[in-house]
């Protein structure tokens, strides 16, 4: 446990270091790049001292660490508001989107995977596999526009973009969720097929248990364990996928904030967004790891 925690600590430290260094990768003078040509000398020196760029690098990093630990991400160059506030308003929207996408992915992927596994080798299995292979080859910036064209433009069931209406979330969540469901389908199928060949399943059948009890009570429990890990790992691509999906559907989450900050060269905001998303991912992975250990009787917590 202690070894795991120290590993986690190193990772978080490394994430902080990498995001801190981002602003120093800017070719030339970051202040010049961020403010552009029209800025006055006074503006420049003010920003320079705000960012603490004239101090030694190690000292800058130490200051960065203390500030982040206090939840202080500095100020947006563009709007002059504290970045922490920006993140506080944008983060819940992303969380909502990612959660709904996860639910969609699970509720389509797992049943479909079970179905394909039970029909293994038959045409139903083939159709499910073909569809999920094709779906997982569709990146968000292609699936999104298709959904938008069909359901928002052609049928007019959902708004094209924005987040004013209650149904606005459906299309972006589907964009993220369908890709996830394709992966979950394939994983569930493989995992369940493996388990169905195990001895204890044969025992359960030999005892005369009904097929549904065998599948639901005995096979699924073991088969779904690996799915927990996959879900944790996929949360990562889900979080990264929100950047593009939120941009397409004008969903005001943290991904869109990131893209906007890049367009305005508001690098402190970029830095903060990257940090927050990466840390969420680290946290999600820790939680899935923990849940896996709780769910699997063979692994001690």
């Amino acid at each position: 446990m202690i070894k795991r925690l120290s590993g986690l600590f190193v990772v978080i430290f490394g994430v902080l270091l990498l995001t801190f260094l981002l602003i120093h990768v800017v070719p030339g003078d970051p202040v010049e790049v961020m403010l552009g040509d029209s800025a006055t000398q006074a503006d420049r020196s003010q920003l320079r001292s705000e960012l603490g760029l004239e101090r030694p690098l190690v000292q800058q990093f130490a200051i960065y660490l203390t500030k982040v630990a206090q939840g202080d991400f500095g100020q947006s160059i563009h709007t002059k508001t504290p970045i922490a506030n920006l993140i506080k308003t944008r983060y819940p929207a992303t969380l909502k989107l990612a959660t709904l996408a996860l639910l969609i992915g699970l509720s389509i992927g797992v049943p479909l995977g079970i179905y394909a596994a039970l029909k293994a080798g038959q045409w139903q299995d083939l159709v499910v596999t073909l569809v999920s292979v094709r779906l997982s080859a569709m990146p968000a910036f292609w699936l999104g526009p298709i959904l938008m064209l069909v359901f928002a433009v052609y049928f007019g069931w959902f708004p094209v973009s924005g987040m004013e209406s209650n149904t606005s979330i459906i299309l972006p969540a589907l964009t993220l969720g369908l890709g996830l469901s394709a992966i979950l389908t394939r994983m569930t199928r493989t995992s369940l097929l493996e388990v169905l060949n195990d001895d204890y399943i044969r025992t359960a059948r030999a005892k005369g248990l009904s097929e549904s009890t065998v599948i639901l009570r005995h096979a699924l429990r073991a088969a779904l364990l690996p799915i927990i890990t996959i879900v944790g790992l996929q949360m990562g691509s889900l979080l990264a996928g929100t950047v593009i999906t939120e941009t397409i559907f004008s969903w005001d989450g943290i991904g869109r904030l990131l893209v906007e900050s890049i367009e305005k060269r508001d690098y402190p905001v970029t830095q903060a967004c990257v940090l927050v998303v990466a840390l969420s991912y680290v946290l999600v992975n820790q939680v899935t790891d923990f849940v896996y250990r709780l769910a699997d009787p063979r692994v001690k917590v």
Partner: protein
Amino acid sequence: MKFFAVSILVFWLVAVLLGRVLHLNPDLIDLHAILSTPSEHYWLGADDLGRSLLARLLRGVEVSFLVAITVTSVTMCIGVLVGLIAGFYGGKVDRFLMQITDIFLAFPGILLAIAFAAVLGPGIINLMIALCLTGWVSYARLTRGQTLSLRNRQHVQASESLGAKVPRLIAYHILPLLTSILVVEATYSIASVIIAEASLSFLGLGIQAPNASWGAMLRDGVRYMLVAPHYVLVVGFSLMSLILAINLGGDYLRASLNVQADA
């Protein structure tokens, strides 16, 4: 499946060569053709500046492959080197190097590449640097795991006890056994780099106008989706067919080279 994958790849190769031979100009502006639907003059229609979509699509796939092959080669070299060192020496070296890959893996998907591309500034070179900086990790992990188990194989131990030096052990006794798994990984990675390049260009961080790229075309296609849906559909289907073909090719290679799938 194999036939399907190969025919799509051959199709794109022939199309690109034909485009070059016929001198299709991706930058030629025809103001009468703006956002026009497919016609006998513009086979796939024209974009928002009246440029031939066909010509731009073909130039775009060239750029995609250029980026994908460069990035895959560079990341593979770095990653394999790191993985070999970590797996071969083990111990503290291994722990240190794997700690670094853990840090890179803490950034989900292409987030870190987006961040690097953003601060480096837009452009094809910076795009490739950003993708290289973040892409080596998976190769390092893969190579390290394989090397760790190969290190203790008898033929390696035998050669070592005969006095073979480390470079010889790695080059003659470990690397050859890694080739097939790396070939499969590289195939998948070409597909994922093409997607990553398109994602970054979609966000305006990659290849800049007026140069053609699929990501930027998709972005413009989405912008004009309501008036000219053929634009986004043409680019999207092209991208999907290419990614699918490469991935199926990877599946085929994996099966025929008898490489075990991880996870």
